[in-house]
């Protein structure tokens, strides 16, 4: 129970121009016990983060408002749609990474389109993850490790709360396992164990297939082929 309390401290800022998708991501995040704020544009996101846009014309100067040292509300992660009118998710990512006060906030990009060049561009610019839409509960399990990282970074700078944070740190591995378990739908076809072990071995041979890579590879096939076996085969998807 103490764990749930610690988790609820993580605050996620979700950015999407579609109301349906905002509702969805909000529910997904809340179900995963995060605190959530949603906004409908990149500029509102920057506003919420306390970054003024006044000097947008001159991107070489740090685009930071005078007394910005910490935004009033701590944000542990920003998750943003890629395709938005005006400021895209990519633009927002760049603004955050260019800002000395915000660059430690992890950014995750969501997109309905599986375009490898787009995914690479976002990852190169410092995005932690790239989620294909619609985002699933199982995707959200990948967020937690990134938030832990920022908490720890903050800890190095700060002096107080050391004890609390180190407790959180110790809990991490165990918590992670639990999260992974939670991410698997309870009612799945009981796949033969041996088969899934074989799959695991095969997968560990080609170590490189982390999530990012997989997304890109999928992108090589036409979009209509993107029928991931979401539930039926999930036991073998490690």
């Amino acid at each position: 129970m103490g764990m749930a309390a610690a988790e609820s401290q993580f605050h996620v800022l979700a950015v999407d121009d579609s109301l349906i998708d905002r509702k969805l991501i909000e529910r997904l995040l809340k179900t995963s016990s995060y605190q959530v704020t949603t906004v409908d544009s990149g500029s509102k996101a920057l506003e919420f983060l306390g970054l003024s846009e006044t000097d947008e014309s001159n991107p070489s100067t740090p685009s930071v408002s005078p007394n910005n040292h910490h935004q009033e509300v701590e944000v542990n992660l920003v998750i943003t749609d890629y395709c938005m009118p005006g400021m895209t998710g990519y633009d927002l990512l760049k603004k955050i990474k260019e800002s000395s006060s915000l660059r430690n906030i992890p950014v995750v990009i969501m997109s309905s389109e599986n375009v490898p060049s787009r995914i690479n561009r976002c990852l190169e610019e410092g995005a932690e993850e790239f989620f294909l839409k619609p985002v699933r509960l199982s995707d959200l399990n990948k967020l937690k490790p990134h938030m832990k990282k920022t908490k720890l970074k903050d800890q190095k700078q700060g002096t107080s709360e050391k004890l609390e944070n180190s407790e959180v740190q110790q809990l991490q591995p165990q918590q992670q396992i639990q999260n992974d378990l939670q991410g698997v739908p309870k009612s799945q076809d009981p796949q033969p164990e041996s088969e899934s072990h074989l799959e695991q071995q095969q997968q560990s041979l080609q170590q490189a297939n982390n999530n990012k890579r997989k997304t890109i590879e999928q992108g090589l096939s036409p979009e209509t082929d993107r029928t991931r076996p979401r539930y039926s085969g999930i036991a073998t998807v490690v």
Partner: protein
Amino acid sequence: MEVGQMQRQWLDYTRSLFLEGFLDAQFMQLQQLQDENNPDFVVEVVSLFFQDSERLLKDLTFALDQNAVDFKKVDAHVHQLKGSSSSIGAQRVKNACIDFRNFCEEQNIDACLRCLQQVKEEYCLVKNKLETLFRLEQQIVAVGGSIPLVEPTQMSF
């Protein structure tokens, strides 16, 4: 009708919607996100989808009716419709949107008009189906029953 029978009817109907491809696994995600704190989550999101779709279909009809069709604009509308249909799991609408976007790229006006018709038909179909599903749910709740939990394994994907 007794509750058990109504629940079986609801389950059969849900299953048929998956089997016939009107809905996909994403709709099940919505159902999983609904709990006692958010008992109307699915209905809320689906209602937003209805509003969104009707606006976009109107905009599309208008955009394709111009003398000089702005295919970029058409594509942007279809892109939105594809996004919201995929977010609620309205699979056949989503698939119709994918075809539609290909013809936008080709700037093929006749094919685009056919696709618009197709998308409209699929939208009306899934709207009717979902409204029927929600009506069945209301009937179950009205007699004090609860909506059965859908097990992914019961639906074949």
